[in-house]
C-alpha cells in the first residue's frame, strides 16, 4: 500500500455519487443520520482526558460498559480496533472501515457513532457503550429480543451494529413512526437483506421499552 497505490485508488468515480451526498444534495435526507451524528461528535468532542502523542504506543484509559480499561495503543488506532483487538469487545465489526456501513456502531456519551471513525485516544474520558454492555448477563436487551423474534438477522455480521444503532435511536425517539425508523437507521447497511425484520423489530422494541 504505497503512496502510489493510495493516490491511484482514491480518485472518486467519474459516474458514481455518494448515496448520502446525493440524498443530502436533493434534500431527501435518507440514510444521513449516522453521518450527521458523526459530524456532531467531531465538533462536540472534548479534549482527551490525558495528553497522548506518538509515534509508538501511548498509555490510555477507556471507560467501556461501566468499566475502566488501561491499555497502550498508537494514536492512529481507531476506537473500533482498540475495542476489538486490545480489549476483546468483538461485537462491533469492521466492515467498510470508512464510516459508511455502521457495523461498528457504539454509543459514545449517549450518541451512536461509527467506532471506525473515532480515534481511541479521543474516546478517553467518555462513556463508551458497546453491544456487549446492552444485555444484562444472559438477559437480552429488548432490542435484541425483538431482532430475534422478527428474524431481523441472517449472517448476523451487521446485527450488533444495527442493535446498538436501534438502541440509540429509540433513546431519542421512544415512540417512532415507521417512517422515522426508516430514516433513523439509514446509517447502517446489511448485505443479506434483513431490513424488513429490522423495521418490525425496532417498532416492537419501542413498545417493549416504553413498557
Amino acid at each position, binding site marked *: *500500500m504505497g*503512496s502510489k497505490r493510495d493516490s491511484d485508488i482514491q480518485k472518486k468515480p467519474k459516474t458514481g455519487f*455518494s448515496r448520502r451526498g446525493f440524498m443530502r444534495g*436533493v434534500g431527501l435526507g435518507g440514510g444521513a443520520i449516522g453521518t450527521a451524528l458523526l459530524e456532531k461528535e467531531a465538533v462536540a468532542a472534548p479534549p482527551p482526558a490525558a495528553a497522548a502523542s506518538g509515534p509508538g504506543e501511548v498509555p490510555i484509559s477507556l471507560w467501556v460498559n461501566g468499566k475502566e480499561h488501561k491499555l497502550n495503543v498508537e494514536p492512529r488506532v481507531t476506537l473500533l480496533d482498540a475495542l476489538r483487538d486490545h480489549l476483546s469487545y468483538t*461485537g462491533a465489526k469492521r466492515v467498510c472501515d470508512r464510516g459508511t*456501513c455502521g457495523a461498528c456502531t457504539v454509543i459514545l456519551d449517549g450518541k451512536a457513532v461509527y467506532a471506525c471513525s473515532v480515534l481511541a485516544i479521543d474516546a478517553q474520558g467518555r462513556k463508551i457503550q458497546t453491544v456487549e454492555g446492552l444485555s444484562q448477563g444472559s438477559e437480552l436487551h429488548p432490542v435484541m429480543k425483538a431482532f430475534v423474534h422478527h428474524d431481523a*438477522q*441472517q449472517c448476523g455480521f451487521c446485527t450488533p451494529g444495527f442493535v446498538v444503532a436501534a438502541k440509540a435511536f429509540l433513546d431519542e425517539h421512544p415512540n417512532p413512526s415507521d417512517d422515522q425508523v426508516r430514516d433513523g437507521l439509514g446509517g447502517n447497511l446489511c*448485505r443479506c437483506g434483513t*431490513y424488513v425484520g429490522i423495521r418490525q423489530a425496532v417498532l416492537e422494541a419501542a413498545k417493549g421499552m416504553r413498557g
Partner: protein
Amino acid sequence: MPDYKWPAMDKRRVMGKPIERIDGPEKASGRAKYSTDIKLPNMLYGMLLTSPYAHAKVRSIDVSQAEKIPGVKGVTVIAGPGTELQWQGAEIAAVAAEREELALDAVRAIKVDYEVLNDHFVREEDFAKAQAAQKVQPSGEVVTGDPDQAFKEAEVVSEGEYGIPVLTHCCLESHGQTLAWNGEKMEYFPSTQNVSGIAGDLAKQLEIPAEQIHAHQDHMGGGFGSKFQSDRWAAEAAKLSKGAGGRPVRLHLDRRTELQIAGCRPSFFGKIKLGAKKDGTITAWDSTTWSTGGLGGGGLNAQLMPYVYREVPNRRINHSSIVTHTGGARAWRAPNHPQVSFLTCSAMDDLAAKLRLDPLELFIKNANYTARANVYVSQLKKAAEMVNWKSNWHQRGDSGTGPIKRGLGIGVGTWQGLGHNATCKATIHPDGGVEVELGSQDLGTGTRTIIKQVASESLGVPMKDIKLNIGDNRYPVAGASGGSTTVGGVSAATRKATLNALEKLFEAVAGGLGAPAAELEAVDGKIQVKGNPSKSMTWKEACRKIGVTPITATGENNNRFPGGLIDGGVGGVQIADVNVDVETGVVKINKIAVAQDCGLIINPKTAASQCYGAVIMSVCGALMEERVMDAQTGVFLNAEMEFYKLAGIKDIGDIEVHLDIVPEYDARGVIGLGEPPVVPGIAAIANAVTNAIGVRVPTIPLTPRRVLDALAANERRRS
C-alpha cells in the same frame, strides 16, 4: 429400515412451524464469534500488499526495509521479479507483525519496481472497442428451428438493447482466516461456505496431508458464493505462521481488496430481437450478447436464454466473452440467472409495449414455453393480485402529467436446488441426551435451526434437548453451501440418521413395552405403542434401557439418489411497483410482490427471510450496485462501500412474500430457497421503471443519471 418419509403436513409438531432461529440470541447480543473475531494468544496480524495496476510486471521487489521494522515477524513474496500481475489487487507480498499498524507500516515499506504494461483496457459494456482491441472471444452460434423464416413470417418484430454490469459479492465479513500451527498440525478458522472441504483445499496448496488441518467455524459473515476455496491468502498466512514458529496469524482482506479480488458476478450485455404474432405469441428469438468474468473470459451461460420461456421454437443465440484485466468471477447467488432473467424479461416487456398488450397477458400467453406452465400462470396471477395489477397497470408511459410516474413490471425465475451429499451422525446417550453432528455450516440461512427441527420431529424430543454440532471438519462430511443445496442435503441426512438411531432405541425398549420395535413410535418425549399411548415410557426411561454404550447411527443424503425427501426445480414470479421522479431521476420502490414456488417448508420464518433478503439484494442490483472500471487504467474506481452502494433500510419499499405452502407442493419434499427468490427482482424493477417513464433505460443500475439520460435521449429522438 425405518420409513424415512416426512410426517403428513397436519401431523408435524416442529417442522413447518415459524420457530425463531436458534443462534439468534448469540448473534443479536454480539456474542457470536466470526473468523475475524478469533483472537488467539500471541497472535500476529497479517496483511497483503496488492497490485495498484491492472496490468504490470514486477521488475524487482525489495522487502528489506519492511523486515527491519521492529515487531514485523515475517514477510513473504508472492509475486517475485518477472511476475506479470493481471489485475489490480493481485497479491504481491504478505506480512505478519505484532500489531496491525506495524503490518501496515511493513506493507508500505516494501519497494516494488513495476513495469506498467500498456494494455488496451476496455469497459465490458463497450463491445465495439473490445473488438477493436481484440479482446473478444466468441463462443459460437447456436440455432434451433428456423429463426430466419420465423422472423420473415412474424407479424411484429421487437428489438432492444440491455445491459447489467459486474457486481461484486461485498461480503460484510471479509475473506480470510485466523490460523496457527501446532507442530505439523494446523488449527484453521476460515470464513467459509465449505467447512468439510476447505481444509483439503488449503492442504493441497501447502502440499501437506489434509488430515493435518482442523477447520472450525461457528459463524460466517456472508459468502453468497464467493467463499468455497481457501485462497492464496490462507496459504500465505500459513507460511507466515510457520515462519514465526507457529504463532497464530490473522489475515483478512481489507475492504478495497475484498471488492477487487474476492469475487465478482459476470456482466451481461446484448441485443435481443423477438418475432411474434399480433396476439403476443412469441415465434422467434435472436440474441447477440457478451459478458466478462475477468481475465479468464466467459463466466456466463447465454444458452439459458430465452430464460424460463425456453421452448420458443425458433432461436439464434450468439455469445462472446470479453477478456479484461480484472479480478475473477466467482459463483454469485444463482449464477447466471438474474442476468438472463433481466435480459429475457426486458425483451418480453418491450414486445408487449410494442404490441400495446398488457405484459401480464403476454407472460401468461407464452407460458406453454416454460417447463411448468401451470405454476407460472398461477404465480403471475397471484403476484398481479398482490400489487392490484388490474387497477394499477397502465400502458407504457401513460402515467399522467405530474413529475412522479408510477409503473409496474414483471420478472420471472427458476432454480434447481436439490440437496448436496451429506452425512449426519446421531447419538442417543443412556442419560437421554441427543447429539446430532454434521460438517455443515450456517451461513445465516437458518441451517442450525432446521436441522434441529428435523431431529426434534423425528425423535419426539424438544429442540432444546438436542445438542447440535456443526462447523467442524471432524464431524461427518457435509457438502459446501452453494446452489441452494444445503437444506435438502442436511434435512434428508438428519432425518435418516435420527430415525436410524431411533430404530435401535425401539429395539432396546420393545421388550419392556411388550410390543415389537416396528410397532413403536416416538412422540412428545415418549416412546409408545402406536395408537396406544397408555403403553408408553418417557424418553429418559427408554434411554436408560440402552445400557452403558450410547446408540449411534448415521444417515446419508446421496445427491444422485435423493429419494422422496427432497426435490429440485422451482419457479418464481415477482412484480415491482415503483415511482420514478422524472425531474430528479430517483426511483422509489413502492412494493415488490413475491410469488414463490417451494417444496416442503421446514421453517416458514427463515424461509420468508430468504425471500426478503433476496428481493433486497435485487433492489441493490437494480438501483445501485455496479463495479465501475476506468477504461484508461483498468482501475476499479469505486472499490469502497461509500461508492460501491448497497440499499439501506429506507430504499427497499414494502415487500410482500407469498409462499405456496400447500399439500401439492409439500409432497415434493424439501427444496432450497437461497437462490430462487434472488432471480426475478432486477427484471421486475427494470420493467416497472420502463412502464413508469415510457422509455427503456438500457443499462442498469437505474441510477438517477441513467434515468435522466434515457429520458433526455428519448426527447431528442422525438424532437
